[in-house]
Each structure stands twice: as C-alpha cells, then as structure tokens.
C-alpha cells in the first residue's frame, strides 16, 4: 500500500512535467496541424537559461537559494524561451505556411537537431549540475516520502495549467485561438489576425516548456543539451494519448504516462520503462487515433 502510494506520488510529479511540455505540442498541433518536434529542445534551452541565471544569481548575492530568486530565474527563462518560440515560428514555420504539411514537419525535425547540436556546441556536451534554487526538505507522511520539490513541481504545474485554461477559454485571445484552430481561412476572413494568434500560441507553448525546464532542473539536477529528447518524445505521446489538439487531454495524458512509468519502473519490468510510452503510442494509434478526449472527425472527400 505504501509502495503503491509512493509510486503514485512519484508518477504524478514526473507526469506534471510531461503535461507542461505536452501542452505546447497540443496547442501548436491544434492550430497549425503541425507537430513541433523542436519543442522538447525549447524545454532544454529553458533548463540551460535557468542553469546560467541561477549560477549568476548565486554568485551575485551569497546564499542564492530563495523563492524570490527561483521566481526570477523562472521568469527569465520564460522570457528567453518565449522569444525563442516566436523566433522559431517566424523564421522556420511562417515561410512554409502554405507549403505542404510535410515540409513544416521536416523543418521541425531540422530545427530540433539545430537546437540539440547547437546546444552541444555552445554549452558543451558534458552534463551540468543545475544550481539549488530552493533549499530541499524531505517530508514524510506516514511512510510515504516526498520532498518540497515534488510539491512545488505539482503546485507550479497546476497553477500554469489553470492559467492556460483561463487564457484559452476566458479571454478574447483564447477565443481567437480556438477560432483559428477550428477553421484557419474562415477565421482570417472574419478579421482575426491569424499570424499574430499563431505567434502567440508558440510563445505561450514555449513559455510553458521553460517552466517545465526549470521544474525539471530543480528535481533532477543534471542537465545536458540532449536532455530534451526523451521528455519531448514522452510528452508527445502524452499529447496523442490525451487527444492531440485537446488542452485538458494533454494534462491527463501527461499525468497518465508519468504514473504508468512509475509503476512499470517499480516492478520487475523496470527494464522496459522507456518502452512503455511507445507501446501506448502504438496501441492508441491503432485503436483510438483521436486519443482519450479527442473527437473523431471523419475526413470529407
């Protein structure tokens, strides 16, 4: 029972990071029908901005580990990644807006490689130790052990997901985003500045990836330029599991993948932990391609 609860807790903490990344995939797909494979690498850049900013702050004012500093680091990382997301869209995807979809997809893969290997060139390929932004405490609740880090990860992730939910369903921008997602041409005929909406979507998605990057660095303090590959793929699977293009679906998908991985990792089959996400991907694509929450849309001929 204790082990069960412990695994559940571990799974939710890991899953909420997947969920934050998955939101970026699902939003971009919802609007452009494009799988932005460079998204996992934006997450990596977010972590590295946190690494350099955190180290600088720790040097600038002795101590360094305070919630205010952590918030500052996160804000900076969000700004940099938001700008990067905008740049990605402006430079790589917008010129291909009217090209066949496969062209954007290949560009996305190219962009992903550029960030990964460019990262190795700039940051160096060796693993770096993410600075301690907040003091860590171990919390023991009846044998189930957690740290304040896991709780922070969970809290921050939930807060940002709620914020996103509000943006998408409670603001004018959100309504415009949904309109563009529903029908691109019609939305543009109705006077919606589609380019601006798409840019905003990229910025929001990348900002969430930055949050995930900081939370990841906080809980798993070893970062390297290829760290975005696996979480990126798992988050993509999460988005597909929840129904790609569906915002609550991405959250549920991320949490589910995290929990399933925790249980597989804790079983005799810990060998297959990384494989399980892809088994799920295959099963979903075979039996329910629209995902758990997606609506099935027959294609009109």
């Amino acid at each position, binding site marked *: 029972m204790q*082990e069960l609860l412990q*695994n559940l807790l571990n799974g939710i903490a890991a899953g909420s990071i997947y969920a934050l990344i998955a939101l970026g995939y699902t939003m971009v797909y919802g609007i452009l029908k494009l799988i932005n494979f460079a998204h996992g690498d934006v997450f990596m850049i977010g972590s590295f901005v946190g690494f350099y900013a955190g180290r600088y702050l720790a040097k600038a004012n002795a101590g360094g580990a305070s919630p205010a500093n952590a918030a500052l680091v996160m804000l900076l990382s969000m700004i940099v990644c938001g700008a990067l997301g905008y740049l990605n869209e402006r430079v790589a995807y917008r010129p291909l807006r009217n090209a066949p979809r496969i062209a954007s997809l290949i560009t996305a893969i190219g962009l992903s490689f550029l960030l990964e290997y460019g990262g190795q060139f700039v940051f160096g390929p060796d*693993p770096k130790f993410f600075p301690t932004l907040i003091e860590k405490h171990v919390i023991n609740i009846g044998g189930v*052990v957690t740290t304040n880090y896991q709780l922070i990860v969970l809290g921050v992730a939930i807060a940002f997901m709620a914020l996103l939910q509000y943006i998408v369903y409670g603001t004018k921008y959100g309504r415009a985003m949904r309109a563009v997602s529903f029908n691109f041409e019609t939305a543009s005929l109705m006077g919606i500045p589609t380019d601006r909406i798409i840019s905003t979507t990229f910025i929001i998605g990348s900002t969430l990836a930055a949050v995930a990057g900081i939370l990841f660095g906080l809980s*798993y303090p070893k970062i390297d330029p290829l760290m975005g590959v696996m979480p990126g793929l798992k988050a993509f699977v999460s988005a597909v599991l929840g129904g790609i293009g569906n915002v609550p679906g991405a959250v549920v998908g991320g949490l589910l993948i995290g929990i399933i991985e925790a249980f*597989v*990792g804790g079983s005799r089959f*810990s060998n297959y*932990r990384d494989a399980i996400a892809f088994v799920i991907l295959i099963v979903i694509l075979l039996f329910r391609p629209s995902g758990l929450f997606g609506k099935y849309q027959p294609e009109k001929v």
Partner: protein
Amino acid sequence: MKRNYLVALTCAFALAFLGCPPKTESTGTSTADAGGGEILVGEYGSLTGSEATFGQSTHNAIMLAVDEINAGGGVNNRKIRVLTEDDQSKAEEAANAVTKLISQNNVVAVLGEVASSNSLAAAPICQSNKVPMISPSSTNPSVTQKGDYIFRMCFLDDYQGQSMARYLYNTVGTRKVAVLIDNKSDYSTGLAKFFSDAFAGLGGKIVATQSYAKGDSDFRSQLTAIKTANPDLIYVPGYYNDIGQIAIQTRDLGMNMPLAGGDGWESPKLIEIGGKALEGCFYSNHYFPGDPNPTVRDFVEKYRQRYSATPDALAALAYDTARVLADAMKRAGKTDGPALREAIGATKGFNGVTGTINLGPDRNPEGKTLVIVEVKGGALTLKAKVEPAGAAPATGTTGTTTTGTTTTH
C-alpha cells in the same frame, strides 16, 4: 615569409626522401640522434573525440614514465622514443593508427587503448604482425583473447565484482544487498552479474534487482521497490553521471543505506552532482592518489609537478604499462617480437603504482589489489585495500585513518 618558404622546401625534400609526410607526433627525449640506438615504441590513444580525457591522461603518464626511464640511462643503454598516434576515439582510426605505427614506423611494441572497442580493433593487427601490445585499461575480457601478443595491466570486471562482494561480506559485514543496473551498458550488467553471483555464493542475499537506462533522470520508482526490500546497501555499478542523481533520489526517499559501485564512478563530477547525498558511499578502483604507499606517492608527486593535475586511475595504469614494458625489454635484452612477448608474459612481482603486477597465462594481471574509495566530508578518501582471495583477508590496511584526500577538481 622567407622562413616559411624554407620550411616548405625542407618538407618537400623530406617528402621526396621519405616518401610520406612525417605526420607522427614524436615526443620523448633527445630527438637529436634520431633512429640509431633508439627503441621505437608506438602509442595509440583517444587524444581527441569523446574519450579525449582518458587518452590525455594515459598519454601524459606514458611520457612521464618514458622520460624517467631515459633519464635513468634508458633500456640496455638505448633510449626509448614514443611515437603517438591519435585515433580520435574511433575504432577504425585505431586500426589505421596501429597499422601505420607497425608498418611505417617499425615500432617494437604498441601501448593502448583505454576503450575496449578500440583495443579490440587494434589487437588483431598487432597479433598478426607479432608486435606485442599492452592495453593499460581495457576491461573487456576478449581483448587479451585476440592472441598471445596482447596483454593488459588492469584487472577485469569479474575480479572487481568478486572482490567487492568479498569485501562487503567479510569485512563490512553486509548481508542484504539490492542491485541497481544500467541495462544499456555491458560494463554495468557484467559487473552486476559477477558481483551478485559472488555475493550469493558467500552466503549473502540479493534482495532486489532493478534496472535503469543510462541518462535516465528519474530513478524514484526503482528505488521505491528497493526500499520495500530494505537492503543494507545498494550496489550500483554504473557511470558517475547517473550515480549523483541516484544518490540524491535515494536520500529523498528517506533511505540512508550506503551506495557502492565500481571504477565507473571515478570522476571529479561525481561529488559535484551527488554532493551530500553521496556521503558514506564507496566504490572499488585500481588505485588511489592519496595512498600512503611510497610508490604511489612518488608517482603522484612527479605527475603533479609536471602536469599540475592529480593523476587518475587511467594515468596510473598507463604509467605501470610503460614501466612494465621497459622492464621486459631489459630482461629480454633484445627487442624482437617473440623475445619481447616472452619477457612481458614473464612479468612477476613488478612493483607498480596500481599494486603488484603478476601476469598470468591468459596475459591478464593476477591478484591485483583493489582499493575502496569512500566519499567522506565531501572528498574522496581511501577506505580499504582488498587483497586477492588467496592472500590475507581483506582489511583496511591503512586503518580507518583517512590519510589521503584528493583534490576533487
């Protein structure tokens, strides 16, 4: 400008005479009397590429040893000259480098490599040319199985795993161990298997076996399963860059037992990542730079003086390799392949930095000393030395006094 022209002209002449550009980097001592009485020894190593740090410290230590031997009059009144080839950490380049060293430079022996895959590529070439090759630190068993001209200086993983099991069971008194394996690495799975078999053979219990993949960041679920099994110690024969994270998450889950591992832990990055979580954890290694043993102290001092860095285990093994070769040349009295091979194979009781070296019939060292290095007070300290099974029981020879602390950066 004029000088460049002259250099070019000289090179052109050299080319015309030699037929090929003299690209081999020749370091060593007096290059004044080139050829002549010098004994040419080839070295191939990963001076650039992914394993560059391994190749660099190996190269540094070889040069240190050779210069020392030459300063002491050389071997049988002949100086040794080392020709070094960079294999860029690639197996195919290793094969090219060794072919060049043997067929163009006519070296009498070849030293290298660290990575087993590179040694495996070069070994058949040395074997078919009857040129002895000594690998300082390739642990894959098949390296020396390539033929009777191939030797090595380090102990193998079976020996390392078994010695650790004996040390834990007999000296520390550990009875229940959980094993956490990096299933992406042959090194880790091999070491784990040798350890588990030996530990169970002694009467200990392996209460849990879990695995992860190199580069993972979340180990909590495996560790939760291990926690339920409640072991005295967790054996994690992985590489240093995962160990730090594993230690942190072990402590996060409220588990206080020590972690133990093998020589893959060795790196200045180990403590940087693991920090306080690694306190009290230990691993087996080939040598420890803070060892009070005079041979070790002498070597560490000389290496520090010349390179202003603390030599790692690879450097220590390379230093022994070069000295064993020189010793064999002395005993053989000549440098032709078969005679040299015979002499290297007969190495017995050689007092090396990494312990006493006795080469066995399978051309691997037998009964080397294993050092147990512990993280204590944020630095590495010597915990114990494990002697081979036949000899005296494993004891903390230096007592518990943590004499040597290494600079960890």
